[in-house]
Each structure stands twice: as C-alpha cells, then as structure tokens.
C-alpha cells in the first residue's frame, strides 16, 4: 500500500514541480490528440455530408409505369416510395406529361408539384419566381418563352380539349436540357384538364443512398408494387459513387499523413523532455533504485500526461470537427464516443512509448558518468 502511495506521490510531484516543462509536454500530447480526433471525425463524417451535396445533381431514381402503360396511379407511386428510407429522402417529384395548346400553339406540358421539383432539381434557373402552390400560375421553358414571346408576369391561355383557362407565367426555366421545351403547371390542375385524375407519367426521386442500396430498392419495390418500374439514373448514381470514392480516399490519405507526422512530432517532443532528466535517473540509480522501478515511474508519468493531454485534445478535436462541418456543410455533427476512446488510447500509447525510449538509454548508463555531467 505504502509502495503505491509513494509511487503516485513521486509521479504527481514530478509533474507539479516541473510545471513549465510538463506543460510543454502536455501541450504536445494535446495537439496530437486534437489532430487525431478532429481528422478522424471529419473522415468519418465527410461521405455522409458530401453525399448530401451530390444530391444537387438531381434525381438518382425514377419510377416509371410498368409494361406499356403510359401513366401510373399516384397511390401506387406513394406505396413504392414508402419503402425508401424516409430520413434519407431529399424529394419526390411526380410529372404528368401531355400536350396542350398555349396561345393556340401546341406545346408539351408537364404537371408538377413545384415545391418538390425545387427540392429534387435545385439546378433549375428561374427568371422570375417559383409559382405558389395552388395559385394556378405556371413556369415556362426558355425555348417556349422565346417561341411564344412571353415574359414573367404575362398571362397565357391554356387549352386542352374543352377546358380552357388563363394562367399567369410566374417564371422562365433555364436548364440547358429538354425542360426548356416544356411548360409546367400545377399537377392537380393538369390532371383535371387532361382528365387523368390521380395519375402521373414519371416520378423522380432524390434520395441519399449508395448505388447498391438503390439497386436493392428497385428489386423490392418492383416486386411489391407491380404497377411501377423503378430505375436507377445511372449517370448520377455511378458518377456519384466514383467521385465520392475519390474524395473519401483523399481525406483518408491526408488524415494518415497528418496523423503520422503529428504523432512523430509528439514523440520527439516527449523524448526531448525526458532526455534532459538523465541526471535525475543517475541520482536515483546511485541511491539504489532498480532499472525496473525507474522505467515504471517514467511510464506512469507518461501515461498520466497521455491521459490528460488526450482528454484535452479529444474535446478540442471534436470542436474543430464541429466547426469544419458547420462552415463547410452548414450542419452539426454528433459526438462519436468510439473515436474519442480511440484518440485517448492512441495518445496514451504514443506518449508512453516516447517516454520509454530515452529512459531505456538513460538507465543503461553508469550513474557515476551521468552525475558527473557530460
């Protein structure tokens, strides 16, 4: 019992009495642990956060009517999309295509829910405004706008069969794609005009999921809801997989390099701090201490430093990762206990090992030589 009291007393006192130097060592360990926990947290979090960014490429999954049918019931689409992981869903935009007359000209038309399309296809450039839901306003493709010579704010006449109505052009859509040849109305309004209540032609889904997850979904949804055929938008899913993989590899390698160098830095600092205590070791040996007890004492000190520095660093590292996430992605991250534990263990280990190397060389020296100096 007394042996342990003495042991702990020696360690605590050596830490306290040599405050300035121990502070230097503590700082070194803390920096190492900060870099470690911060970078590993970022590495762990990046694919998830980046995956969200990649959703700006638009839908990665489309649901089309099965077989030769041109339309599918909205209820069937809803049943299929319920099978998707709801919290990873970015948006579901249904389209109903048709042909109507706009100002007496036959134009292709798509009925959409504007709010959903805005979520699924954030790349649409709108001159003017997005229409309010249910207001009856329309969006108009840039090519059509040129053809009809209309500007945002003007009104056009929509005619399909018997029904005819006036609608205000809220904005002009520019995408560089086929959307520029369409006009877009509110979905229920078009369903009514074309007598296709409750029906849609195609549904675009934007969901944060890997290609493999999406492939399994297309199988299960195809089996459970036979009326729809889910298809991957390969261009988006495959490219996302590829680019995201590269990005992750980049962060991974950078993390490894930074960690390696930081740990070596920590180790050299610890070695320098311990190496200057050769005299102390010599004195202890002269007083009759065994090599084993000297090693144990220094190890105890090292572990203590590693623990303190590691704790400090882990907390700092989390805040660093948090600020990166907030600044880059505008989102918070959750605390990962596993990473914190790992950072703590690594910093204790590195400090311990870094302490032992100079102590080993010091203990092998004759005390008389060390005590005489040089």
């Amino acid at each position: 019992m007394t042996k342990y009291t003495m042991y702990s007393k020696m360690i605590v006192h050596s830490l306290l009495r040599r405050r300035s130097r121990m502070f230097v060592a503590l700082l070194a360990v803390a920096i190492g642990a900060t870099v470690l926990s911060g970078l590993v947290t970022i590495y762990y979090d990046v694919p998830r956060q980046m995956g969200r960014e990649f959703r700006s490429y638009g839908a990665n999954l489309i649901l089309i009517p099965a077989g030769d049918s041109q339309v599918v019931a909205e209820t069937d689409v809803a049943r299929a999309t319920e099978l998707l992981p709801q919290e990873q869903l970015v948006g579901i935009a249904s389209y109903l295509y048709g042909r109507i007359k706009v100002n007496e000209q036959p134009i292709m038309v798509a009925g959409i829910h504007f709010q959903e399309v805005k979520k699924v296809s954030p790349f649409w450039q709108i001159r003017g405004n997005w229409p309010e839901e249910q207001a009856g306003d329309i969006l108009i493709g840039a090519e059509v706008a040129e053809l009809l010579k209309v500007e945002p704010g003007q009104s056009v006449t929509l005619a399909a069969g018997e029904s005819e109505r006036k609608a205000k052009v809220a904005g002009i859509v520019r995408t560089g794609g086929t959307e520029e040849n369409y006009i877009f109305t509110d979905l229920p309004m078009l369903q009514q005009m074309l007598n296709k209540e409750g029906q849609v032609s195609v549904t675009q889904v934007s969901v944060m999921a890997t290609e493999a997850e999406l492939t399994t979904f297309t199988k299960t949804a195809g089996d459970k809801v036979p009326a729809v055929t889910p298809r991957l938008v390969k261009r988006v899913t495959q490219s996302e997989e590829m680019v995201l993989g590269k990005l992750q590899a980049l962060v991974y390698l950078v993390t490894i390099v930074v960690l390696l160098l930081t740990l070596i830095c920590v180790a050299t600092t610890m070695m320098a701090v311990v190496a200057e205590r050769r005299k102390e070791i010599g004195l202890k040996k002269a007083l009759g201490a065994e090599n084993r007890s000297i090693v144990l004492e220094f190890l105890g000190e090292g572990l203590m430093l590693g623990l303190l520095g590691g704790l400090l660093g882990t907390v700092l590292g989390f805040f660093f990762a948090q600020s990166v996430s907030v600044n880059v992605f505008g989102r918070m991250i959750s605390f990962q206990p596993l990473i914190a534990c790992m950072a703590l263990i690594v910093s204790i280990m590195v400090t311990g090992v870094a302490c032992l190397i100079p102590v080993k060389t010091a203990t092998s020296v004759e005390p008389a030589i060390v005590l005489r100096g040089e």
Partner: protein
Amino acid sequence: MFWQILKGSLVRQRQKMFMVAITIALGVSLTTAMLNVMLDVGDKVNRELKAYGANITVTPRSASILHDFYGVEAGGAGQYLQESELGKLKTIFWANNIVDFSPILETRAIIGQTASEITLVGTWFNHRLDLPTGETVETGIKQLKSWWSVEGNWVQESSQGAMLGSMAASRLGLQIGDEIDLVIPGSDRTAKVKIEGVFNSGGPEDEEIFVPLGLAQKLTNLPGKVGKIEVSAITTPENELARKAAHDPKSLSLKEWETWYCTAYVGAIAYQIEEAITGAHAKPVRQVAESEGAILQKTQLLMLLITVLSLIGSTLGISNLLTASVMERNREVGLLKALGADDTEVLVLTLSQILFTGIAGGFAGYFLGLGFAQIIGQTVFSAAVAAKPMVIPIVMVLVVLVTLTGSLPAIRMLVSLRPAEVLHGR
C-alpha cells in the same frame, strides 16, 4: 568567436539539434504537402466531376425548335452543323478546358428482322481527330459517357458495328453478335450492322441504337452533317457575374465582359463555341454545371480547413520542441553569462543556432512534403500534384516565424536567468 561557439554547439549537441531539425522537417513537409494538395485539389476534383458527362450541348441555331416541337425534319443548310467544323472546338480561348466532345446525328430507323422502329444515333465512339493546330485528340462517347456499363465491346470507328441499349435489346430479343438490317422508313437506304455491345446507361439512351457517325450520315443522306454536339468542359464555379452574363451577355460593361470572357465560366465557353462554329447555339447543361460548382467549393473549403488544422498542429509541435530544447541548455547559458556575455549576445547566439537548424530542417522538409503530395496525388487521382512555386515563400515565412515565436518563452527564460542559481544546480 561567435562562429566558433555556434559551430561548436551545433557539432557537440548534434544529437539534440538533429532531433529539432527532424521535427521541423516533419512540420514543414506536412505544411508543404497540404498546401500543394489544397491548391491543386480544385483542378483534380473538377476532372473527376467530368464523369457526369457533357455540360454544354451545341445545336444548330434554327433547327432546335422545329424538330423538338413538331418532329419536322426540315432539310437544307442551317438545320445541321458541319462535321468538319468540330475540330474548331479545340481552337477557342478555353480550348484546353474542353475535355471531350462527341457529335450526335439522330434519325428514326426500322430494324428489318423485327420490323420495329427505333431511334438510331450516329456518333463517335473513340475517334481520332486531327486538329487545325496539327495536334490529334482522341474523343467520343467512350470518354464522355463513362457511366455506361457495356457488355461486349465498344464499336470500332471503321467497322459496321452497332451498340444497342439494354432496354431495346431485351424488348426486341437481340443479343451481342446478332446481325440486323437497318432501314430508313420512306426510303430505300439500308445497312447491315452487327451488334458488338449492349449498354446500360440508366437513361433514355437505353431505348436507342448507336452506330458510327459515317454510317448514320449515309443512311440519312446527310454527308458531313451532325445534328448536335455534346461537350464536356472544365469550368469555373458560377458567381454573380456569370449569372448576369448568362441572362444577357450584352448587359455587361466592357470591363465585366472582358473578365467574363477570360474566365472559364460555362457560359463564356458556350459563347466562344458559338463564335467558333457557324450557325451553332451552345447551351450550358445546368444540371451538371451548377452542381459542379457547389461540390468543388465544398471540397476546397474542406481541404483548406484541414490544412489550417495541420498547420496549427505542426506550428505548435515545432515551437514546443524548441522551448524544450532551449530550456535544457540553461547551464550553458548560465556559464556564458557568468563569463560576461550580455543578454543580446546570448539571444543572438541562441536564435542563430535555432534558425540554422530550422532552415536545414525546413529545406529537407520541403522536399519530403513534395513527396507526400505526390503520393496523395498518385493514389487518389492517379495524376501528379503540381508543385506550386507560391508554396515555397509561404513555407519559408512560416519556418522563420514558427522557430522565432516557438523560442519566445525559452528566450524570456534565458534573459531572466541568474547564472549563480543555474550553475550551482537546484
């Protein structure tokens, strides 16, 4: 005398000084590697994002509306682009930013064996093109549509081969190796092609058949004409100026217009393509162009923050070690002071020792860092990371700053040191 002391201390304490130099070298190599990677990451990621395919489509100015709305195939000049003009894409101001491009000529055809109608697309698969500048480029949809998964082979340019979309293949019951007759409805032009590959693109192309451009031109009787060009270009993320220009390039002031024209905005590149190719209308594909910018900015910001963290880390690490190494030399300094050296002399001596070690370590670290940057570049992007010259002054300033500030606490201690106390020992 000064030099003798300096040299003596460096040689005699070479082990300690070596350690300091190593730590500085590690810190500097980290800084160099991270700065180089950070400065280059935008370019590299941008190239990766080319996997998303074309971001500019070029169509004939007058044909676009007629065809899209009424399906009218009006003949005559002006409805098509000239195949011979494609090389001009590589002569515009931002020619180096144009990575891949491919012409498209579409028509409806009937497959003789099954009597079913299909969209026939003539294109370049992997075409060697001689440029007016004397260079040759290899381009085509093999590069442009990297996400296609292909069973069988890509078609050779000269062959009578075709590639069939996966949905069309399963609908018509055709397989790789089958020979089919293509007939243009309402004419007697036919061709026999062999299906060399079946592709799955996950898009509308899955319902189409792709043949070499020359064959499509023969079938449609439109020699040397193309209907559309898809272009993949490396672009700068959009900003306010680019949006203003996209709305109407004429609304810019002369100075703004110059900046816009000489920046690789997708709009500016499209504008230059219109200038180069007669009767062309180049449209940026917003889906690709906008998203690229967003992802690029996020990646760069992420790398910047990681770089800052590693910079702070290595700075603190170096200054820590310096403090430790100066502190342990208090006896030597005590002796110097006892022999009559004043504070300035002691300071100059210590600082020059540190700076000397720092510069040596920094030099080694810079090259080590370049090595690290190359490892990262090769492993992740399979391309070398360009060694930016601007990293050198940054690193130099950093080394001097870090070694000096790092030794500040130690210097304070040295100045307040009382020789008698130290020499006597505690």
